[in-house]
């Protein structure tokens, strides 16, 4: 009897220990794979051979060692590689800009000793060719990203889901961003506003406590000049000036900071830059539709179309000792100059703190496959065809330390403002009243 009890007891202890180890194992595994050093090693390891992959092939957990670990940045394995994962593989597509991109540029620009672009006014990529040996290669990749076509000039309703572990939905936000490029190379959208790079108005629709809140921001051609911003809050019935230079606080409960928008939304001169070379990565570069969310926490795209893309890997080191990041690495698509992945590491321990991954769609693909409409407004997406730009269909932003994620779907319609309409729409006058 005693012996049987003892045996049962030992079994239970063993079972419990196994369970504990099983539960702890992924965490330990994740911690192992989420350091800054491991991502750098992963980049240096080089790209795997993907010549045997064919369009339409499904990539699942069974392809982990052969393809996935070599094509998904190691810091993201914990979220992007999961048991019932289903990636549709597509051969690398070509997504050229329109034929007039780069034609109407003002060529009289330069890069200064801080790596800051001077006197550039848009209309094309400032540095179409990136030389790996160029000491400013990292900054130049980012300048191309910041001045890429399709970045703005849209009506963009969005839905954002804030999710905890296990997919628990904490909050759902609905808002619309409208933005226009002012600096267009040899001309400005609105004459007399040549110092403006772009203007944006964003308005919240849901939940009710945020409905009607809107902000307007002005970005300037001069990178040294901070953005100007105002926020209209319905409960105050007046606009409030906002501070642009604080870029490291999380926004509206979301898992991103202003400096992480599109991979890098800060000031070039506040960082040290290193070009790490090119690396193939899997990317949702031309998705069919806004992807459904999957994974154990519903944080990442599932059943989406992925391509292997050649990306510039750029290391960014904030100079400020108080900055939350020690390092940030962005993967920027070589052809389109859109950010595909971003990883930021905690200054405390060089472990992953935040990451984002973007879902994009080429405007010309709208001719054959229309993505879904926003749940609260219908738009004519056929307007997108003919622009020859990438459109932002959303992103996953993950805070690895909380842990928590923000998943956003964007429903973009390209929009060209007339100068007169832009002047009226993007004005402080529009910020003194709102939907109430």
């Amino acid at each position, binding site marked *: 009897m005693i012996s049987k009890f003892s045996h049962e007891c030992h079994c239970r202890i063993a079972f419990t220990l196994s369970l504990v180890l099983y539960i702890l194992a992924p965490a330990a595994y994740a911690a192992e794979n989420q350091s800054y050093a491991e991502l750098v090693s992963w980049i240096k390891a080089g790209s795997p051979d993907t010549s045997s992959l064919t369009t339409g092939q499904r990539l699942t957990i069974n392809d982990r060692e052969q393809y996935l670990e070599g094509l998904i940045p190691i810091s993201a394995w914990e979220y992007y590689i999961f048991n019932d994962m289903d990636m549709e593989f597509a051969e690398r597509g070509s997504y050229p800009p329109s034929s007039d991109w780069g034609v109407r540029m003002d060529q009289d620009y330069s890069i200064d000793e801080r790596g800051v672009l001077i006197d550039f006014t848009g209309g094309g990529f400032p540095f179409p060719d990136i030389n790996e040996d160029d000491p400013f290669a990292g900054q130049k990749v980012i300048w191309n990203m910041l001045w890429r076509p399709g970045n703005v000039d849209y009506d963009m309703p969005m839905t954002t889901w804030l999710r905890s572990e296990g997919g628990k939905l904490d909050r759902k936000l609905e808002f619309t961003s409208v933005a226009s490029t002012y600096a267009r190379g040899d001309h400005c959208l609105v004459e007399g506003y040549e110092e403006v790079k772009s203007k944006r108005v964003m308005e919240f629709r849901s939940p*009710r406590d945020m*409905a009607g809140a809107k902000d307007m921001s002005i970005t300037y051609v001069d990178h040294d000049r*901070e953005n*100007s911003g105002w926020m209209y809050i319905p409960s105050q019935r007046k606009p409030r000036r906002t501070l642009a230079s604080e870029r490291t606080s*999380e926004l509206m409960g979301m898992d991103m900071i202003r400096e992480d928008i599109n991979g890098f939304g800060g000031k070039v001169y506040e960082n040290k830059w290193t070009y790490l070379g090119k690396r193939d990565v899997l990317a949702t570069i031309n998705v069919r539709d806004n992807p459904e969310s999957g994974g154990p926490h519903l944080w990442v795209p599932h059943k989406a179309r992925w391509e292997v893309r050649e990306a510039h890997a750029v290391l960014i080191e904030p100079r400020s000792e108080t900055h939350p990041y020690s390092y940030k690495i962005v993967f920027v698509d070589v052809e389109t100059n859109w950010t595909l992945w971003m990883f930021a590491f905690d200054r405390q321990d060089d472990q992953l703190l935040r990451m984002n991954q973007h879902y994009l769609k080429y405007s010309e693909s709208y001719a054959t496959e229309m993505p879904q409409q926003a749940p609260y407004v219908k738009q004519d997406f056929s307007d997108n065809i003919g622009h020859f730009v990438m459109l932002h269909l959303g992103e996953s932003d993950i805070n690895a330390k909380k842990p*928590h994620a923000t998943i956003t779907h964007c429903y973009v319609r390209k929009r060209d403002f007339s100068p007169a309409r832009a002047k009226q729409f993007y004005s402080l*006058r529009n910020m*003194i009243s709102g939907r109430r």
Partner: protein
Amino acid sequence: MVAAKVNKCRIVRYIINLVAVNLEPKKLKRNLCLIAVFVSLFKLTHLHAIVSLGDSVELEGTLKFQNILRTPKFRDAEAIMQRNTAQLESKYYFLKDREAFGRFNSGPIEEATLTVIGRGVYDSIYDVRGSYADSFTKEDNKYGRTEASLREAFVDIVLPPFSLRLGRQQVVWGETDGFRALDVINPLDLSWHWSRESWEDIRIPLWMARGIYDIGKFKWFDESFIEAIWIPTDFRPNRISTDPRNPWAFTGNGLPETANAIYKDGELLDLDVEFRNRRPNKKWTNGQAGARFKAIWGDIDFSLNYFYGFSADTGVKVQNSLTKTSDGIHYMVKDLVNPRTHVLGLTANYSEERFTQSVLRMEATFTTGIPVKFDSEVPISVDPDQDQFDTARRTVLMLAVDRPTWIKSLNKHRTIFLSSQVFWRHYLDYSKYYRGISTVKHGMVAGEKVGGKYVSFNTDRIDRDEFVITFSASTSYGPAGLIKPTFIMALDPRSTGAYNKFAVDYFWSDNVLLRFQQSIYWRAANHDPGPWALGDIWGHTTSNSRHETDLSLILQF
């Protein structure tokens, strides 16, 4: 220690009693229904904000259940408010892209919308608390218990570069928070919870026209526009309750009673006061209007403002010629007046990104026609009319700083938004006989209190220069920022009176918000009520202490 324990027991006992009252068989059925409604509200997780009806109509709104427990000096507790508010807001897009009602070309008018906001209120405390219900008679018309109002109804018309808003609306000018200098276009309803609510909910909307002409960039200015408002006939004063039966009545700096006696020649007489409404009536000649020019100069966002209106603060003119004493009763006639005012203002803000990383705000106003009380013993040379009333000119200067600040020990994910303001109010026409807040005391005869007799005194001399300093801090906690604490403090450095509020909003879901607020009124020294209705006036004695605990459940869609 023992006292604190006793007080806690009293508060707990009070809450138990309140629950017991609501569990009476008569009320149980109704309360179970309410509980069922609450439970189903909590089940809601992500109901759409803004419900669309077709392509043109949108609806949104809130249901708010607000419970306020007054805890005088934390020695006792009494429920003073169970305000249940339903607000429904709708927007009708009847003209889009130069097409009205989907059929007619509207020419130069690009867009037009109709917005209607309605509010219904039922304060159930008057039914829950017998003492409240009994203190009001039918003639009182259930004052404060219910409200059904069209809050706002306006049409927006966009006719670039001109835009127009016509109808009942709120217009807010200026840079200040919580205290008014230039934000004087709409009066405030201070009758049910003073100024402790969101001002959006207590501003009294007015019928007016508001037009904006966008100029844009010219000369040294950017983002410039001119705004004009015209309020043809709709004047309303700030609404204040002086009925001591109402929980937020303004009864001065003393007993929460209305004066009903007066000393005349050393004798205590009954007092009968007739108040005559001499406020501006609805005539075209009583119109109000204003204009402002707003622009950015360099990086400074500024505005120049002018408003020609009436003072929303009501003044009282004593009609001496109609004052008489007869049969031991002293009769007085007082006229309620709202003088004409001119308000000139300058506002500016500047985002200082390099050294302080903060937004600096400034507001300066010059106002005429401020109604002021004179001391009853004022010399005839100072008050030739002997009506104990004057109008003064006053300036206000407000300087403020806003700064999102990292305090990692308190919040490692998000900055804490710190904001501080300093107000300096200065009387240009100053008299040492100007008086502020009156005090109600017991009537006394031969050193003995006379039951039921209350006398009003006013020894509160207004200072030529008045100051108030505010500070607030807010942030959010939790993975999705669903817990939002706020701390507010307002301090009058001269009277040392202060007000503190600590509030926490917790978003149970996108549709259900739970709110806890604790308000505390205190002073550091003396019993000077000060001019700002802070500290001592609502914290001097236990009977006038208005410490409050506010628990609210808000359903939003």
